[in-house]
C-alpha cells in the first residue's frame, strides 16, 4: 500500500452503492465568482471576496446547490434546511453554506438529505450542517468550514467569509 489513492475510486463506488441513502441533489447552479479573489496584506483575517451565490427564491428545502467559494477551486454547498439554525440567514434563518472538501484528507463530500449531514466517501467522516458543520463522527481535527452569508434587500445571497481553514490551502484566499 503506497498511498490511499484507491479510496477515491472506492468512494465513487460506494457513493453509487449507497445511493439510496445519499440524496445527491442536482446541481442547480454553479455560480462563478463575482469578483477576483486576491490575497491581502496582514490583517486580522484575510480579505474575502463578496460573491453572489444565488437568490433566496432559487432555493428549495433540502435541495443542495453546488457552489464555489472563494474561488472556482473550492467547492461548497448552499442549503436551505427548512428550519431556523444557528448561523442561518434569510427570511427563515435556515440558509447555510459549507465547504465540501473534507477537512481530514480533502475528498469531496456529498450531502445526505435524510439526516442533513455531509458525508465523506474517503474515510467515512460525517458533519452535521444543522449544527454549524460539527463533525459527528470521523477523522478530521476541525469542523467543516462554514461560509459567512449575507442576504440583501433583493434576496440575493452573498458569501463573504469563512470560519475555518479550507482543505488544501495554507490561506483561504489563494
Amino acid at each position, binding site marked *: 500500500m503506497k498511498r490511499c489513492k484507491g479510496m477515491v475510486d472506492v468512494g465513487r463506488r460506494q457513493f453509487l452503492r449507497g445511493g439510496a441513502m445519499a440524496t445527491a441533489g442536482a446541481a442547480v447552479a454553479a455560480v462563478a465568482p463575482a469578483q477576483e479573489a486576491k490575497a491581502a496584506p496582514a490583517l486580522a483575517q484575510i480579505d474575502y471576496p463578496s460573491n453572489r451565490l444565488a437568490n433566496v427564491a432559487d432555493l428549495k428545502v433540502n435541495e443542495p446547490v453546488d457552489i464555489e467559494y472563494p474561488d472556482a*477551486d473550492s467547492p461548497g454547498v448552499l442549503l436551505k434546511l427548512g428550519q431556523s439554525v444557528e448561523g442561518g440567514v434569510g427570511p427563515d434563518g435556515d440558509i447555510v453554506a459549507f465547504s465540501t472538501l473534507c477537512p481530514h484528507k480533502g475528498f469531496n463530500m456529498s450531502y445526505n438529505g435524510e439526516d442533513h449531514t455531509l458525508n465523506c466517501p474517503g474515510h467515512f467522516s460525517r458533519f452535521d450542517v444543522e449544527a454549524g458543520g460539527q463533525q459527528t463522527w470521523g477523522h478530521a481535527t476541525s*469542523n467543516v468550514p462554514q461560509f459567512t452569508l449575507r442576504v440583501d434587500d433583493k434576496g440575493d445571497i452573498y458569501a463573504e467569509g469563512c470560519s475555518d481553514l479550507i482543505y488544501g*490551502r495554507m490561506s483561504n484566499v489563494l
Partner: protein
Amino acid sequence: MAYKRQIDRLPIPPADAKVHNVTCHYCIVGCGYKAYTWPRNKQGTPENNAFGVNLNEQQGAMGTWVNPSMYNIVKQDGKDVHLMVVPDDDCVVNSGLGSIRGARMAENRPSEITLTQQQRLTDPMVWRNGVWQPTSWDDALDLVARVTAKILAEYGEDELLVSMFDHGGSAGGYENTWATGKLYFQSMKVKNCRIHNRPGYNSEVHSSRDMGVGELNYSYSDYEVTDTIFVVGANPMETQTNLFLNHMVPGMQNGAKFIMVDPRRTVTVNAAEEVAGKENVLHLAITPGTDMVLFNALLTHIVDNGWIDKEFIANSTFQGGEAVAEDSGQPAGLGSLDYAMETCRTSLGEAAEICGVSKDDIVKVAEWIAKPHDDGSRRKCVTAYEKGIIWGNDNYRTIGALVNISLATGNIGREGGGCCRLGGHQEGYYRPSDAHVGRPATYFDRHLIRGGGKVYHIWACDHYKTTLNAAEFKRVLKKRADMVKEAMDAAAGGTREELVDAIVAAVNAGGLFVVDMDIIHSQIGQNAHVILPACEANEMNLTSMNGERRLRLSEKYMDPYGQSKPDCLIADGIAQNMERVLNEMGNDEYADQFKGYDWETEEDAFMDGYHQGNPEVTYERLRAMGNNGVQEPVVGYENGKLIGTPRLYADGKFDRHGREDKKALFCAAQWRGYAAEGKAREAANH
C-alpha cells in the same frame, strides 16, 4: 453549535525548516509524521517552502495540507519556534493519513505563546504547610530517597509498592521502561507492583504466550494479501484507525472477506460493509462472554471437515498429548491438538444456543476462515482481537481457544496470516527479569486496600480513573495518604530528619507515603506527597515499537516543559539519591546496588538497556531508518541499514513459552460458563 476556530491561514514553513521524524505516541499503530520547526521570525513563500509544493494552488485529496490542529509555537533550545506536525506520505504504516489523535499532536504540546496544555506540571512539588509547594529536583528527590531508603532498610523491599507503565509511546519507550525496570527489578527486587492498566504485574495474554505464540506476530501488510480478516472484540476503525484504513480496507478491496465478532454493531462493521459489500461481511452479535464457545465450535467444524493444516501441525505443534497440566496457577491444560479437542469439542447446536448466533453463520465463518479454495489451495486468514476478549470472561481459555484456530489452520508465521492482539499503546518493554514477582502475581489493589505497603511510587498511572473497584481503591488510598499529610503538616518548621521521622511514624500507623511521576496533576496525584514532573515523547527522544513490531526513533523537537524530565532521568535521580542516602545511613552494601545510573541523556539509558540486548541498534542507525524504522527482532546491519523480521515464526518454530522443542501448544479451552462471581446474575438481569 460547532466550534469555529476562526483561523483562515497558517504560516508557511521555509525551505530550510528543520525536519524531525515523529512516530505518533497515541496508539499502537504508530503512524509516521514529520515535524517541521523554524524560527519565530522566518517564513517560506507559496513557491518556496519546506513542503516543496506550490501553495498558490489548491491541493488535491490526500495532498499536502496542514490542519490548524497540526500547528503550534513551542520552545526549542530556549527559543520560541513554529511547529508543524504533519502526516508522512512515505511512512508505510499510514501513507499520509492522520487520525483525530495524531493530527492533533502539535496543538497538544505545551505552549507559553498559544497557551495550550497549561495544565502540564512544570516543577517538582512537595506537600508543605498544607499545599503542594514547587521546589527543586534536589529537594524533592532527597525527601523521596530518605523516606524510601529508611523504610526499605528497616522493613524490606516488600513494603515498597510500585505502579508503572510497561509500554511504548509517550511516557514509556525503551528508555523509560528500562530505567524503571532497572531501578525496581535490578537494584531492588520489588514484587508488590502492577502495570498501568491491570492490578498485577502479569501479561494480558498469558495463554497465547504459554502456547508459544507471541501476540504481535504479523506484519500489517498481511491484511492486504489475505483471504479473510477475522476480528474479535475490537473496533479498529475507531481505535486503530489507520491500521483499518490503510491495511484492512486495501485487503477488502483486494477481495478479503471480513468477519467481526462483537455484541454491538460498530462503525467498523458499517465501514467494512461499505468497502467490501454486505455479502462479504459477517457480523456475529454474540452474547457477551461466550466467545470461547464460538471458537470451540469453529475449531470443531474445521477439524471435522479436515480443513486443518496437517503438515504445519505435524512439524510445528506438540504431538504428545498433555504438555502442561491445569493447576491453581495454570488456568487450562496445554498440549497437542488431539488433547485440546477432548475438552474443546463443541457442536454447532450447542454454540448457537449459548452464543445467540445462528448455526448457519457459524458454518459460514468456519468456511471463510478455513475452507480451502476451489482449486484446493489453503485459505489465508488474519485473526485480530483486543479487549473484548482480553478483559472478557475466562480470558486465558478464551484467547487460547482463538489461537487454537490459527494454529490448526497454519495461519501463524505466514504471509496473509497472523493471530494478534490489536493493542492499545505501542510497546517498548525492555526490563530485567520479573521472575521474582512470581505467578500468580500479587493482586496489587487488594494488597494496598488491605493495608499493605508503606511507600508507594506511581509512574504515569491514574488508577482512580481506571482500576477495578476504583472507588474503594481511592477511598483507602486517600485515607492512608491523608494520615501522612497530617503528619507532614504537624512536622512543619522542623528539620528534614524530623519530617522523615514523622512520615515513618505515620506509615507505621497504617499510612502510605506516595510519590507520583506524571506529566499533569492527575487524580491519584491529589493524594501524593511528592509530585515529580515528567516530559513527553518529542520533548525527549523516544524509541518504541508498534503493533507489527516496527521500531522507530521519535525525535526530540522541543524542550521539556518547565523543569520536567524524561522518566528515565527521574529514575536515574532516584537511584543516585538512594545510593547517597544509604551511604549516609552506613548501609554501603545496599547503597552499592544503586550504582550504575550516571546517565545524562535518554540515549544513555537506551544504550544501557535496549542496546545491550540488541547491539546492532543505536540512535544513529534508527534515525537513518526514518519513519519506516525496522521490524523487531533486528537480526543484522548491512549496507547502512538495520535488517528486521517482517513476521515471527516464519520458520515454524515457536518459542514464546520458552520450551526447548519450539513446538506450539494447543489450549484445552473447556467452557465453564461465566468464570467471575456474580457475572451470570449480572447477565441475567441485563
